[in-house]
């Protein structure tokens, strides 16, 4: 029964109803078996909860509340001590988004599943006897090669005109769901898990943007990608919390090595240093900022990579890490700016189109920031008259008022 499923997953019915945009009373009647669960909602519930449709409509009770009966992904989210209700709610919404992305692919008939090839190639090529760090590094080289990023001598977080940055662009074109958004009351830094209906799953990687820099987030995303490749097949989900620097588990070493190698391999560092005329033994604040701005990862990762590559000593790395580069960094890359500073600099047009507020859901009780390409694709389908405005509102999880206010003029202009 739905009631048992929610209980086992540790999801509160009221919260679930709010997130799915369903009246509490009706939802209560569904879960208590007092009213049949309508067919229309079953695929969505199945996808969000990660169970087959018949498990939703089944009237057979399973032992209530026991975690071993929870769908695998929810078992993980239920059991993690540090996870808050806010975190679980965001996961519900992300899984709902995963369901919508599946629909979007069905409409456009473009199914992105290249991630399966990438993941299989990396897993099959893994030397199980090698150290976890080496496994991570090797996997990162394969990742850069398959995604044709091997020649990218600038950081992968750098923006390519028209296609976003290379990390997110590459991951999304592989079919991986990349979500970044703030969860204020949370220690979660990033996580990875599967979304989509049973049998049609895709990996999702999430980075909590709350009080995190762009440079840190790039690392978090690649770290979660490593978990998605190696770990979530067996563990259903992987969670990383802020401040867990000691990397207790061996899988964390592998993920960290993967992220670093994927973002700042030796040749990238070398290229940046040469093109910027940097001398490793005498880096100034400007020089360190140039490394960070071009590699698009936080200073400590750049410096650690430089140290591992043999460009600097451990002493120099720790000395450079103390250098304040914030001002220099802001002058070198827009990514160092706060959202407000960014839109102030870019002008009202940029703010009007893709400011986070325009991509934030309004219908569910908790807000989720949707990826720019997803919002763009939904609006394109409205313009092409492939979906109705109301379907677009459903995809964007916003009400009519918000839809008209945010996109009304933009859509009218196209029609005119």
């Amino acid at each position, binding site marked *: 029964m739905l009631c048992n499923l929610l209980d086992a997953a540790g999801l509160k019915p009221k919260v679930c109803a709010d997130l799915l*945009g*369903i*009246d509490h*009373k*009706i939802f209560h009647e569904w879960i208590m078996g007092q009213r*049949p669960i*309508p*067919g*229309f*909602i079953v*695929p969505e519930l199945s996808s969000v909860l990660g169970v087959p449709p018949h498990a939703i409509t089944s009237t057979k009770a399973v032992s209530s509340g026991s975690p071993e009966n929870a769908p695998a992904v929810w078992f993980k989210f239920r059991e993690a001590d540090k996870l808050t209700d806010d975190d679980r709610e965001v996961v519900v919404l992300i899984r709902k988004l995963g369901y919508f992305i599946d*629909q979007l692919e*069905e*409409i456009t008939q473009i199914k992105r599943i290249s991630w399966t090839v990438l993941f299989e190639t990396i897993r099959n090529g893994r030397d199980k006897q090698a150290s976890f760090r080496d496994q991570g590094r090797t996997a990162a080289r394969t990742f850069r090669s398959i995604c044709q990023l091997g020649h990218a001598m600038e950081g992968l977080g750098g923006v390519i005109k028209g296609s976003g940055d290379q990390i997110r662009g590459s991951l999304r074109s592989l079919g991986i769901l990349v979500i970044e958004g703030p969860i204020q009351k949370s220690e979660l830094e990033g996580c990875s898990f599967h979304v989509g209906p049973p049998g049609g799953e895709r990996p999702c990687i999430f980075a909590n943007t709350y009080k995190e820099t762009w440079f840190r987030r790039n690392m978090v995303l690649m770290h979660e990608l490593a978990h998605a490749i190696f770990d979530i097949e067996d563990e259903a989900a992987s969670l990383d919390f802020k401040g867990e620097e000691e990397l207790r588990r061996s899988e964390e070493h592998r993920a960290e090595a993967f992220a670093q190698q994927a973002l700042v391999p030796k040749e990238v560092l070398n290229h940046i240093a040469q093109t910027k005329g940097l001398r490793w033994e005498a880096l100034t604040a400007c020089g360190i900022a140039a490394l960070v701005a071009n590699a698009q990862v936080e200073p400590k990762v750049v410096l650690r990579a430089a140290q591992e590559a043999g460009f600097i000593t451990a002493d120099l790395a720790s000395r450079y890490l103390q250098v304040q580069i914030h001002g220099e960094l802001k002058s070198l890359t827009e990514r160092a700016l706060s959202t407000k500073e960014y839109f102030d600099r870019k002008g009202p047009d940029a703010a009007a189109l893709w400011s986070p507020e325009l991509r934030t859901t309004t*219908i569910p009780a908790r807000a989720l920031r949707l990826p720019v390409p997803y919002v763009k694709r939904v609006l394109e389908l409205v313009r*092409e*008259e*492939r*979906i*109705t*405005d*109301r*379907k677009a*509102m*459903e995809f964007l999880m916003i*009400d009519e008022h918000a839809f008209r206010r945010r996109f009304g003029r933009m859509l009218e202009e196209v029609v005119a």
Partner: protein
Amino acid sequence: MVSGAEPAVPPNPSLLLLDSDVAFQIFLAEQIPILRHMKRKYGIQPAVVEAVDVEVRRNKKFRSRFAKAYQKSLDNGTIVVLDTRTLRAFVTTDARSVYESIQSLGLHYKLFLDYGESYTHAAAVVLQVPAASNDHKALVVAENNGLEIHQPVLWMFHLVVFALQTGLLTERDCEAIRKKLLEEAEGVPRAFEHCSFANGLPNFYARLADGFIPAVGSPTTKSKWDHRITVFASQG
């Protein structure tokens, strides 16, 4: 029963499926009597599919203003929610398999239309009954994606004009409805957007009409979506 001397008339549809936007406008304009009129005088049961029921209940604007009136109209049977339990009153074949057909068609439609629109139109196709939905764009989208739509699709104003034709409403009532909807920033058909109901009526084609009463509105169709369903009063 129709006697041999009387002309045979086709049966009225058993149901009128309301989409959430029409349901909202009916409650906003306080026009539940139109639904009662259709049920009592024409034997046409106003209904909503489950998805619309869920949609209207979660809509903040609707919920805050009409939750009680909506529940009352469900309780007294003016509107029914079409589910596995209620459907059997309106079909002659196995209700479960009809329900499954609606779900299966709705599942495909909902790639392109929202939940309410999808299952309303899917039910209209399966049951061969009219749907009432103001969303003209849904018809274009359906056409672009090769989805079958049961014609005609009625707008709120087709119900209003029908009520005028059949004597339930006066022109003054209809004008008050027009004004009320415009005041609430609700959409009204182009014919009534910038002129009074009386002035707009000659440019509005009635998609629903009583076959025994002289028609009102434009004598000719105004768009390719204009098809007329003719119904006949079952009493008085």
